[in-house]
């Protein structure tokens, strides 16, 4: 018995024949959101562990990327809205059932907080500029005094931000490829991993690179395990899920997913980082860049492939 469905009389822009409502800005935002979450998480964590001086890149230099990444992400999100002038309506209500409402409010808190964090290191990061802007010193002292509280806020907020980038997609049960409970933790781990990779790129200290490299290796292994679970979950799911996973396994996104995300973005960097930890000379920048590219491609694959999947009725 073969069933065929024709839809006639409907050719909606961005919806037929396949949904394409969310474009590249969403993928970029999910990537930079995860990246910023990772950077801020490690900064707050190592500050609270009192490793501030041994980990200068983690707690200070690399955190400059976080507010920049978040602002790029916010601009990307704004660009993708179709009723832009009404964006402020997001902040007139709190809708607990809507992941996007959570995300909007978390961003509202974490963007100024990330700026305040970088600002509290202003005199160390930009000594030349600091002399010219000496009138800001009083304000900076206040932020330095409250750094501990900022870190205590950043720790949970960065985790919510990281998980949210995945839950934004997984909450849509109409898109079977997104609709799995692992996507939230998976995007969090992936975001932490890209954050760790950026720290490795920025750091000049061997000690710091070694610690963050070990953490990154652990995160990559965890991510591979979660991806395995995710794929297993699709195959154990309904017909809609089995159809959906075909886009990643054998379908048009196979090369992007298994080639760029799993192989080049996870397995190769994991092997290189392991070799380096065993004492072989491996340039640390290579696995770090691969992890970052893999993270970005992963977001693109999930956003684009997810919109092709649907319930078959």
């Amino acid at each position: 018995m073969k069933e065929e469905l024709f839809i006639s009389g409907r050719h909606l822009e961005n919806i037929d024949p396949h949904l394409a409502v969310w474009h590249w800005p969403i993928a970029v935002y999910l990537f930079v959101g995860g990246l910023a979450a990772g950077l801020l998480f490690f900064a707050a964590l190592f500050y609270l562990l009192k490793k501030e001086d041994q980990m200068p890149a983690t707690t200070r230099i690399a955190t400059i990327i976080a507010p920049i990444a978040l602002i790029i992400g916010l601009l990307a999100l704004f660009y993708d809205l179709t009723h832009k002038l009404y964006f402020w309506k997001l902040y007139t209500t709190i809708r607990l059932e809507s992941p996007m409402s959570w995300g909007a409010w978390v961003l509202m808190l974490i963007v100024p907080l990330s700026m305040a964090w970088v600002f509290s290191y202003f005199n160390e990061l930009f000594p030349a500029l600091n002399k010219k802007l000496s009138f800001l010193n009083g304000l900076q002292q206040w932020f330095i005094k409250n750094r501990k509280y900022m870190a205590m806020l950043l720790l949970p907020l960065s985790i919510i931000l990281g998980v949210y980038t995945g839950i934004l997609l997984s909450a849509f049960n109409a898109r079977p490829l997104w609709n799995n409970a692992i996507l939230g933790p998976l995007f969090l781990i992936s975001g932490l991993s890209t954050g760790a990779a950026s720290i490795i790129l920025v750091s000049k200290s061997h000690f710091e690179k070694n610690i963050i490299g070990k953490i990154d290796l652990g995160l990559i292994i965890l991510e591979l395990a979660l991806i395995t679970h995710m794929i297993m979950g699709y195959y154990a799911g309904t017909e809609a899920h089995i159809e959906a996973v075909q886009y990643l396994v054998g379908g048009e996104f196979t090369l992007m997913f298994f080639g760029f995300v799993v192989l080049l973005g996870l397995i190769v960097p994991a092997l290189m980082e392991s070799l380096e930890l065993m004492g072989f000379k491996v340039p640390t920048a290579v696995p770090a860049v691969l992890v970052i590219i893999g993270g970005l491609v992963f977001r693109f694959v999930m956003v684009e492939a997810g919109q092709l999947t649907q319930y078959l009725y």
Partner: protein
Amino acid sequence: MVIDTKKCVGCSDCVVACQTENNVPIGYCRDWITETVNGTYPNVTLELKSERCNHCENAPCVRSCPTGASHQLDNGIVLVEHDDCIGCGACIQSCPYDARFQHPDGYVDKCTFCYHRLEKGQLPACVSVCPTHCMYFGDLDNPNSEVSLLLKNRNWKTLAPEAGTKPNVYYLT
């Protein structure tokens, strides 16, 4: 809403009536016709039906909306408040029926069950123009209404009930 797939001939009159009544921009539509062919020749069956927003009891679009622009009235009708909509697309992603679209003016638009006509005691435009009278509209909470009796006496189905949305457009089969 109840739609009799045995009576529908797929003429698209409901689509045109909706576009005219609701001033839907050219190239867009709030309802549409699907033709489903089952089986392989010579054993084929054809099902024609008019589809639209299912005004789900458990509406995922209402849940995913970050501003509350998508909302459900007490009578179950799901509407979009244009001036609260930011055009984020979350509701479009959440709808298993792809019943929503972005209006050229930016906000998200969809079937309203012709709420402005119901308020005046009139039927939705699509129901009122159907030449084969295959569509019925009424109160499913009232056990003696025409729609309730049809569902009691005929076989029916809803679309993608496995999506958990509890749709409120019923198809007689």
